């Protein structure tokens, strides 16, 4: 066996090493980092990487949940138990509270994905966070494919895609003036399949809704939505019980399930490897609005 063969590194090891490097870089160069934790699989993986980056010390920053109020109970439970186990400080920025105090106004269609942006920006200002870890991946969406690992945001939290800092080697430029901030994406180079392979390898627990289960759903525009307090049957619609799982976890009023029998991580990997539809295409009503929906939301300060 050659020298180099002995020192081989799998793609997951390489991705993990890069993400850990990014997290340590942030901890070394920023005053008040925070990790955005939604209870979704990407943020769960990100949290595991943070554990690894600073072991045997505790994760040295708080986590924040932008709570749309439209939650899956399994996910909230999971969030709270992770936070308790790791001894983390959890900041909750509530969209409902922001509606009640008049910071934002509920949209006519009741969806809250878009109005969470001002809530996020408000929390950043209040707690003076200067670096925000997000679990976004470049393979998710074409505007995100252009995103930097360290993404500069002005004092309004805005992303200016035409004016991004070049990112060379692993030399990240996190400099900013007071009031400005940097969004940091340690999972930039991971794909959905990489995330699942890593979940399997590391035996990372996930909220149960990521695995196949029976649920009362209604079919709309080819997508299967859970019937619950956020999604009620419209006239003429009928619900049915199907075996489904969630590929992404977002605003519960806009996130659809996919038909699936994958009830173990191995089966999910098989399914994801064979699927011909992107996770956002399969599950997110909010991305279908226009060709540039994501770019527009990111410009406003979304992740």
């Amino acid at each position, binding site marked *: *066996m*050659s*020298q*180099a*063969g002995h*020192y*081989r*590194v*799998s*793609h*997951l090891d*390489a991705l*993990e*090493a*890069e993400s*850990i*490097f990014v997290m*340590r*870089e942030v*901890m*070394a160069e920023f005053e008040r980092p925070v990790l955005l934790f939604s209870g979704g699989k990407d943020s769960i993986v990100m949290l595991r990487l943070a554990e*690894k*980056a*600073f*072991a*045997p*010390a*505790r994760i040295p920053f708080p986590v924040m949940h932008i709570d749309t109020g439209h939650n899956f109970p399994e996910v909230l439970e999971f969030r709270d138990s992770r936070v308790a186990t790791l001894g983390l400080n959890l900041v909750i920025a509530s969209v409902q509270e922001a509606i009640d105090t008049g910071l934002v106004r509920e949209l006519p269609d009741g969806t809250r994905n878009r109005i969470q942006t001002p809530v996020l920006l408000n929390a950043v200002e209040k707690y003076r966070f200067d670096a925000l870890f997000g679990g976004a991946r*470049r*393979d998710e969406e*074409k*505007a*995100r*494919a*252009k995103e930097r690992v360290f993404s500069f945001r002005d004092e309004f939290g805005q992303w200016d*895609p*035409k004016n*991004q*800092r*070049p990112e*060379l*080697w*692993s*030399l990240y*430029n996190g*400099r*900013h*003036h007071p009031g400005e901030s940097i969004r940091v994406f340690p999972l930039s*180079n991971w*794909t959905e399949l*990489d995330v699942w*392979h890593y979940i*399997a*390898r590391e035996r990372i627990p996930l909220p149960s809704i990521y695995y196949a289960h029976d649920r009362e759903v209604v079919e709309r525009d080819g997508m299967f939505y859970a019937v619950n307090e956020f999604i009620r049957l419209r006239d003429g619609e009928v619900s049915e019980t199907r075996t489904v799982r969630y590929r992404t976890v977002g605003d519960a009023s806009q996130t659809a399930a996919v038909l699936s029998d994958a009830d173990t991580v191995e089966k999910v990997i098989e399914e994801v490897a064979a699927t011909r*539809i*992107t996770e956002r*295409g*399969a599950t997110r009503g909010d991305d279908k609005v226009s*060709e540039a929906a994501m*770019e527009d939301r990111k410009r406003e300060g979304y992740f």
Partner: protein
Amino acid sequence: MSQAVLETDTAPSQRMDLLRFATAGSVDDGKSTLIGRLLFDTKSLFSDQLEAVEAVSAARGDEYTNLALLTDGLRAEREQGITIDVAYRYFATPRRKFIIADTPGHIQYTRNMVTGASTADLALILVDARKGLVEQSRRHAFLTSLLRVPHLVLCVNKMDLVGWDKAVYDKIADEFTSFAAKLEITDLTIIPVSALNGDNIASRSENSPWYEGPSLLHHLEHVHIASDRNLVDVRFPVQYVIRPQSTTVTDYRGYAGQVASGVLKPGDEVMVLPSGLHSTIAAIDTADGPVAEAFPPMSVTVRLADEIDISRGDMICRPHNAPAVAQDIEAMVCWMDETAPLRVGGKYAIKHTTRTARTVVRGLQYRLDVNTLHRDENAGELQLNEIGRIKLRTTVPLLADEYRRNRTTGGFILIDESTNRTVAAGMIIEAQ
């Protein structure tokens, strides 16, 4: 022997490694078509992405499904029909995961190509068989060598439009090979392809019986990258000091970082720069337990036998193999700022490994014409996308190697301290 056992024992995902490549070509050479092909042939394109692209293509009245729309993700790019920024694309085969940095080819985007090439294991340059080598092809090859991308592939595309004429291919291949020889490009592979029809992309084509080399995908899957890493010179830039404030873990002091080069083992005698103090590696920790060796690109935490004062920006190396401790740096730089040029006397922040200092430009020896490689020694400044050789003086020593020997400890960026913009990429030629 042991290899075979290993392969059956590990999950497929553990057998895959990672290859990063950057693509470059002039407008309309077929870069987007080629990437679309690779994604399509490796089943990495999703039907909703294709449908979205087809719908937009149809709405714009394109005659064919414009696969460029897949990578041109920004509104401005789609409106103008051009690629502005680096787009990252991902695909995998059972052997490898690939990260493509798709960079725009035009001269005003030199900085984007430099950015994409900085982390690339391989550069893929396209030419149109009908047009042959053009000014841009030479520039792309030069940038590949400047950034020391270890492997280069030239795809001679649109072979279908020249009737798969071997003579056309040979002429381009010969011309490019002799140009590349001047650039110290060590590994060059030239492949005749039709991106549109998929010839020689995922498998060898019957249209080119005279071509004996691999298909593009086969080459990407098999090109040997493991020995591109420098496993000789131990360089461990200290990134962050881990000192748990807890009652269960006491007296722990670990130096966290990513191995830039070399192999570290417990028991090794090491030297810490810039102090020059010696110690021994007591342990190399990871969250999954201690390891017997650390090598690039592992992120680990090193503990030393002696209590010495070490902080971020210091470097752990070996007593008889150390980088220069240098304040006078000569380097090639690519200027990346459109708002102001580089000028002699200019002061900047410099970020090099995990160390940040301030620096002043002491001299501009020449500006290089990236198309002709002509050196203009009377140049007074470097504008956006211009490349030149400069002298720097830093406020504190950098722990630096020549870029040709070490891409991690030989590369740096300059930052404008008032705007905070990243204004230059630098490759060290000499440090003292």
